[in-house]
């Protein structure tokens, strides 16, 4: 087997052994189960929130912690003395985390629809588009944390510290209708707020808001570029 596919195989085993993977899956599932008692059949708001929580935890918590730890432990440096570049490990990690976020989202959609009578996602293509653009934007923030944090522990701390205000602003702690207007407006333009709204629109069948998709794309690109520019390999 070539270095790249073996790397993907070993890294996916490591990902599944990481307790934070279970955490990132369990928390949104728990929220879904706890609060679904208060929703009516056909609801799509709560499922969209739970999906945003899952992707937020993967992007802001797992991505930066894993990558900064790899740097801190000298794993990226050790790889650069082999024929496989540390960039390959970085790519493999981002792809695996994306796949993990996708699987977590698929589980949440299935549980919502099958167990809690949520509506089926109304527009699949719009849903996938929202997922990909939003996940890219959130991962870019995670990558920026990984790029600048001094250690794995620091990255973990920054990720958690950033997650809570972003989750609050993004309308994941309470419906945005219940938030002060200013905060709700600001929240609409945060990565998690954009993701939640775009997914909710696609799931419920509301009209796609191209502005939301465009802002997510810009976030992904700009923050991603800054992260790449400042990424330290050692």
């Amino acid at each position: 087997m070539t270095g790249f596919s073996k790397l993907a195989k070993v890294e996916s085993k490591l990902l599944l052994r990481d307790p934070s993977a279970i955490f990132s899956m369990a928390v949104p599932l728990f929220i879904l189960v706890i609060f679904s008692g208060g929703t009516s059949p056909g609801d799509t708001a709560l499922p969209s929130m739970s999906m945003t929580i899952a992707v937020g935890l993967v992007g802001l918590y797992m991505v930066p912690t894993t990558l900064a730890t790899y740097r801190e432990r000298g794993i990226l440096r050790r790889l650069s003395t082999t024929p496989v570049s540390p960039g390959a490990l970085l790519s493999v990690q981002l792809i695996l985390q994306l796949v993990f976020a996708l699987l977590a989202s698929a589980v949440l959609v299935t549980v919502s629809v099958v167990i809690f009578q949520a509506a089926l996602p109304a527009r699949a293509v719009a849903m996938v588009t929202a997922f990909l653009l939003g996940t890219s934007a959130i991962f870019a923030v995670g990558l920026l944390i990984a790029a600048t944090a001094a250690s794995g522990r620091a990255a973990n701390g920054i990720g958690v510290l950033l997650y809570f205000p972003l989750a609050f602003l993004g309308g994941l702690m309470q419906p945005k209708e219940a938030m002060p207007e200013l905060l709700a407006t600001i929240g609409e333009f945060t990565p998690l707020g954009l993701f939640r709204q775009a997914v909710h629109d696609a799931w419920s069948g509301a009209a796609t808001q191209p502005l939301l998709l465009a802002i997510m794309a810009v976030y992904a690109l700009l923050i991603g570029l800054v992260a790449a520019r400042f990424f330290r390999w050692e």
Partner: protein
Amino acid sequence: MAVIEVNDLVKTYGRLPVVNEVSFSVEQGEIFGILGPNGAGKTTTVECAEGLRRPDSGSIRVLGLDPVRDGRELSHQVGVQLQESLLPENIKVWEALDLYASFYRAPKDWRELLEEWGLADKRQARFATLSGGQKQRLFIALALVGDPKVAFLDELTTGLDPAARRVTWELIKRIRTGGVTVVLVSHYMDEVEELCDRVAVFDRGRIVALDTPSNLISAVDADQHLRFRPLAPFDDALLMGLPGVVSVTRSGDRVIVTGRGDFAGAVTSALARGHVPVAELRVGRHTLDDAFVALTGRAFGTQETR
């Protein structure tokens, strides 16, 4: 044949030269030591040879290749164990070896390495659960899994207990037996003395001496002491005229003979000829520590801030 050739290597961080016009060459099949206190430029030099750092000036050839320009090709032919490099906590021993083997064109059979390095019963163990010695053995095995021609080992036994260090030394000797040239970075005198065919002694970014450990030690031109307790009376004149002897002094029932070169042999045979039995004979033997002090005018343990 020279496997590594370094000429006038300079590497500067900020305005501070960390490596300053260093030149040396490593011959095929030897264990070459790079010795010096912390901050002497040892690791930086080796990292330039590994292609991890770009020299400011000077040239490096490893197996005829430029570590910066031909880095990819070179990485197939060298094995590296880095100072302060770890593995993911949850990776299993066999997974790490299997993974690293997959990086190389013509890897060794990692199952054999597992046996050879005494890790067979730790095959399924996760990295975090290994002892210090086991981790180091795994790092060496990972450095060798690509079947390299040259292995760079940096501060291999730091943090190991004396028994684990001894075991590691035996294993390093075995690497050479397998035909691999070894570059060993160390700040342990005894380690270098035990293992290396030749040693470059680094101090403040420069090589202050390069020779075999025994030549470095014997080049220390300082007085040595021979102490003993005579069991029969004798006249100091018996020893004073001997070649190399500088002085004979008495302290209580002890005699201390000071001398240079191979005076100790002359003293003991003169005592035997004069029928003077002695007890508690001690020779103050020079070590690489003495060589370092003689070369730099400083004790080895003196740490420099970078």
